[in-house]
């Protein structure tokens, strides 16, 4: 579904992503893991069009997309839920959700999606008219995911959805991610919580210093020594 080939991304003189190649198959949860500063968020930003890669290709459903602006990519079905949620705190929950469906003109589909979002995150229905700035961190993450679902994405890019959440919310968010995959949405999941990421995903790519250093089935990587030593604290 998505393929990056020899992707390089820099910020000025800083090479954040140094030629990575990876694939995401339709219908899977694929996780991209790695330490802080490895280049995970940068990779997502390049896919969603926030930054132009310096070199390399990104192909989505057979089409090259590395030069497309973000709003075109949303139309194609790629939606990026960025780091630290970035909901619009001055707008209401309703307005945030409406913005999520900004590119979708089909009223019927929008109201169905809204019902779906209310179904998985009932709290958003309760807070619908409230300002989203007053939501708790967990609620904001739900809003960020709910908002992304309003456009009817084919591929969802999730950047550390569990970061800073209480354990009970982490579990909720992970459950929702599995549920979305079962609904046919492909997911590229960036996580620092490697344990959760390996449990929930089908395949995993490991990024170090802007390079892919390991790839495998997530279930198998749980027992990989390199992963156990560096990312799972030596044990599970």
């Amino acid at each position: 579904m998505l393929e990056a080939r020899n992707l390089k991304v820099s910020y000025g003189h800083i090479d954040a992503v140094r030629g990575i190649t990876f694939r995401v198959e339709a219908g899977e949860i694929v996780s991209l893991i790695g330490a802080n500063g490895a280049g995970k968020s940068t990779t997502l930003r390049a896919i969603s069009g926030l930054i132009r890669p310096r070199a390399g290709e990104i192909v989505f459903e057979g089409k090259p997309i590395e030069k497309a602006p973000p709003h075109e990519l949303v139309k194609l079905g790629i939606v990026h839920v960025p780091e630290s949620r970035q909901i619009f705190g001055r707008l209401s929950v309703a307005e945030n959700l409406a913005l999520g469906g900004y590119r979708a003109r089909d009223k019927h589909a929008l109201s169905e999606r809204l019902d779906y979002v209310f179904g998985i995150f009932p709290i958003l229905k309760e807070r619908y008219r409230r300002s989203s700035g007053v939501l708790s961190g967990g609620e904001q993450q739900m809003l960020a995911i709910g908002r992304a679902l309003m456009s009817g994405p084919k591929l969802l890019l999730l950047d550390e959805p569990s970061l800073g959440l209480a354990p009970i919310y982490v579990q909720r968010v992970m459950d929702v991610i599995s549920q979305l995959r079962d609904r046919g949405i492909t997911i590229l999941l960036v996580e620092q919580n490697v344990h959760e990421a390996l449990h929930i995903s089908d395949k995993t790519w490991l990024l170090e210093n802007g390079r892919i250093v390991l790839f495998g089935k997530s279930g198998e990587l749980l027992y990989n020594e390199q992963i156990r030593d560096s990312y799972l604290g030596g044990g599970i």
Partner: protein
Amino acid sequence: MDFFAGSLISGLQLGSIYALIAIGYSIVYGILRLINFAHGDLLMVATYGAWILIARGLSLPFAVIGSVLITVAFGLVIERAAYRPLRDAGEEATLITSLAVSIFLQNLFLMVFTPKNRAFALPGFFSEKLVLGGAGSITITNMSIVIFVVTGGLIAAVSLIIKKTRLGIAMRACAENSTAAKLMGVNLNAVVVFAFVVGSALAAVAGVLYSGQYVSFNPSMGFMIGIKAFAAAVIGGIGSFAGAAAGGVLLGVLEILFACYLPEGAGVYQTAFVFLVLIVVLLFKPNGLFGAAEGRRS
């Protein structure tokens, strides 16, 4: 008392014109963090536009509509040619550019129209007076009524657009966090164009009303009004729609009250007092009266 009521009416009238202009500064600043100093000059463009169209024999309403269209075209060309190429160049670069655009516009119009003061020849209807009270001592001209109705109607309409419409919501989203707005599928350029259309149209109407009310105009007219309306936007809290409207009205009222009530000899310094108010407000409320306290995340 009657003198006070009369000054208040004049102040509200001037203030509502400032409000129209301040809104344009504020919505563009909200999205781009651009202080568009050429915004004031759009009033001048609008005024000359209407003046020419009237001279060509167009009736007043059509001349005003034509002038709005001309001004919007200027606003869009300026955005496209001067600001968009510098979108990522930083606030200082665009600020300086906007000053350059302002000087360019003034000089262009000086070349074409000479520095001569001009005036509209408005039909007598506009200066007819209505008695409001005070046994005939509180009066209001039809021009004032037109100003109140037009500015009030436009402010209400734009406020509704920003609150309720798809583009309006997108505009507020871009003002808060343009990166996140892009991720929602919002085309930032479309929103910027929308902001320049709204801002330029309001400036055009403000320009025609101002020149209609305050008689004469020349190619430099936009400078001082622009600076005052900018101050109004800052007093209200730049980036805030309600703040710009309120700041504009407040500034207009204060300016007229200073002019009328300051002791003999000080009244001519009304403008200085207006900016003193700006300084005092900013000392106590650095983000303005209605300003958003939080900075932009992006």
